């Protein structure tokens, strides 16, 4: 009802890629990590990494509906580590370069990111500062034609493999939001190091790192826009990031439910298929109703974005609902798998481990609520 033939053709090509190039490898990548450069190169060739971006830098110049199709299809991936790695590349680390970066930065970083030649990461969170951006202590001090960066960042997805980081650092001691700069920081600079590869409950196919910056000299041309407005840029970039969880959630939840239904239909307990149990049936329907709602809230957001409206309120609501729904569905479906659900060989166990972070990363539920409350004026 909402997508035309061109969208569906594009969907088919993403689907083919997921089925052939991603899902068969997920088991191995969960164990060993994803070779991002290799994978992104393929995706770049197919035009998946710059859907909305200007063809001048290798993008497809398509609209938000195509992006939505792409993200929806990533919902079919057997695990969340890889989709997150991809979304970092397309929706978390590069939108600010696209929106506010110089042509130099676009040529040098956006273009290879779109081509899949460079892997990107977004470096905002610090050991002492998550949602409380004002507490960021990584600093960038201007020194001649460079900024000297000192500090550390943590929970950085793709952090071990990234070629460059989009990094937020304090550029002034003034209080308020106009004291930060957003920088493109290549990881081959002297003084940069991955201080720790982090071991996580889930998302094992994605690498997460703690990064250390010891007098890293970043050329001044690597500053995105104004050196005092990085926070503002990042807030806008967050909208692209947070949106990604919406389409992926309603598709993945539906897949999770489908595979659970398949299981409980063949699982016989006390002589009858588990699927005949009313409480399970009812529970599944409750989730399906929320899934359907989330889908249409998402399409509303797409329409708003297409119309150039600010969708911060709706995206924050969607992020909140999606993350909670995801946790509920993954854990609730695991329950229906019984003992098998707790075994790593059952896919649902991966969903359970992977999805927990969604209510925390990219702005915790509580942060989403604070944002909306403020926007609502209470």
């Amino acid at each position, binding site marked *: 009802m909402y997508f035309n033939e061109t969208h569906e053709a594009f969907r088919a090509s993403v689907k083919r890629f997921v089925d052939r190039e991603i899902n068969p490898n997920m088991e191995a990548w969960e164990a060993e990590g994803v070779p991002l450069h290799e994978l992104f190169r393929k995706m770049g060739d197919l035009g998946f990494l710059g859907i909305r971006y200007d063809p001048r830098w290798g993008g497809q110049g398509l609209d938000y509906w195509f992006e939505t199709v792409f993200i929806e299809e990533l919902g079919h991936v057997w695990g969340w580590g890889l989709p997150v790695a991809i979304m970092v590349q397309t929706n978390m680390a590069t939108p600010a370069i696209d929106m506010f970066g110089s042509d130099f930065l676009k040529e040098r970083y956006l273009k290879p990111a779109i081509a899949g030649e460079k892997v990107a990461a977004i470096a905002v969170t610090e050991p002492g500062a998550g949602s409380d951006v004002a507490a960021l202590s990584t600093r960038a001090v201007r020194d001649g034609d460079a900024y000297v960066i000192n500090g550390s960042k943590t929970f950085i997805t793709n952090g071990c493999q990234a070629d460059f980081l989009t990094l937020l650092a304090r550029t002034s001691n003034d209080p308020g939001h106009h004291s930060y700069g957003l920088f493109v920081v290549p990881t081959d600079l002297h003084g940069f190091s991955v201080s720790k590869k982090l071991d996580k409950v889930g998302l094992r196919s994605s690498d997460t790192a703690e990064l250390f910056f010891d007098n890293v000299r970043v050329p001044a041309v690597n500053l995105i826009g104004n050196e005092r407005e990085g926070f503002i840029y990042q807030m806008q970039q967050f909208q692209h990031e947070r949106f990604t969880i919406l389409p992926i959630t309603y598709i993945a939840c539906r897949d999770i439910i489908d595979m659970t239904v398949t299981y409980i239909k063949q699982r016989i307990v006390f002589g009858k298929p588990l699927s005949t149990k009313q409480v399970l049936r009812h529970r599944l329907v409750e989730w399906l109703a929320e899934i359907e709602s989330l889908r249409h809230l998402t399409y509303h957001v797409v329409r708003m974005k297409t119309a150039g409206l600010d969708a911060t309120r709706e995206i924050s609501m969607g992020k909140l609902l999606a993350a909670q729904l995801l946790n509920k569905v993954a854990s609730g479906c695991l329950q229906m798998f019984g003992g098998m659900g*707790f075994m790593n060989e059952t896919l649902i166990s991966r969903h359970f481990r992977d999805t*927990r972070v969604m209510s*925390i990363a990219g702005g915790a539920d509580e942060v989403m609520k604070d944002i909306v409350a403020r926007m609502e004026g209470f």
Partner: protein
Amino acid sequence: MKYDVFNEEHEQFRVQLRRFLADRVTPHAAEWERNRQIPRQIWQEMGQLGFLGFCYDPAYGGVGADDLFRVVMSEEMARCSAGGFGVAVCAHNDMSTTYIDLLGTHEQKLRWLKPCTAGEKVCAIAVSEPGAGSDVAGIATRAERKGDHYVIEGQKTFITNGYYGDILVTAVKTDTKAVPPHKGISLIVVEKGMKGVTARKLEKIGGHASDTAEIFFDQVEVPVEHLLGAEGQAFYAIMKNFQLERLVATILAVSFAQHILELTMDHAKQRVAFGKPIAKFQAVRHKLAEMATAIELNRALSYQCAVQYAKGEDVTKEISMLKYASAEMVNRVAYDATQLFGGYGYMAEYEVARLYADLRAVTIAGGTTEIMKDIVGRLMGL
């Protein structure tokens, strides 16, 4: 709040056990988890110190302690920061050796119970099968009598201590034609070294120190003296011991939740955001208050049940209530705790993150939440 449940001896036992766990277990927990194995030595030490089989007769190494010692034990096991270890020990102590004690002859107890109490042998209970979990009457593993042997053929799954353990108290069908079917179920002790017994280790979401196995019985010949009690007698014993197993599961759940709450409170008092400790945010404070309340509600009913259970009262309904309520509660508490830890709540180096994964099993193992509600409904006359 004072609960007046435990006497001085219980508390002494607690102090000794707590000291032992702090010295000998907690420091090695990460290593055991990484190795996915508990060293044999720790079982032996526990046996030597009287931390195993203490409820059994002195003839078999116990001291005839009351069931409240099991409660103390479970509480302490949950707070020793060793994921999976508590489950392994309770599976041995409260869920499997119990059958030997309940149904075994003097000779059988000397042969199997005594070394279990000494920590020389590790015991497992093998009931669940790929096709039968809570539906115990529906098990398919057969034991056919042939002369002075039973020949066992079949498969068990999700068996705690099933890979590294020594003794399998195994539920089998000795009479496939029994009406009702559960009258054909018997318990036979299978030793792991026996010919035809193989095990496959299962990789789990959490609880890594404890081994969980699929076990295959391929024409396993077991002497008839391995039968516990009479043929066809096992179902009621299993149903009976399920009460103890579920009570222990509840105590573990409540104590795990308390442990998580304490870790989270420490974090919330220390972690600063927006210029103040996050414990000062109302949403956080209320969440912690809700966690504490949920824990206290479950603790009160579980102590009440434990006391009545120890007196020999039938508290099946209440234990079934608690089994699911406490399991759901501790999962909720773990979820909320990881939320309050923020990104750290997802990092495996943090105990709450590991516990979040470890504890996911508890709404399933030992009877799912849904099965428990079915039982409660039945006992309510519905």
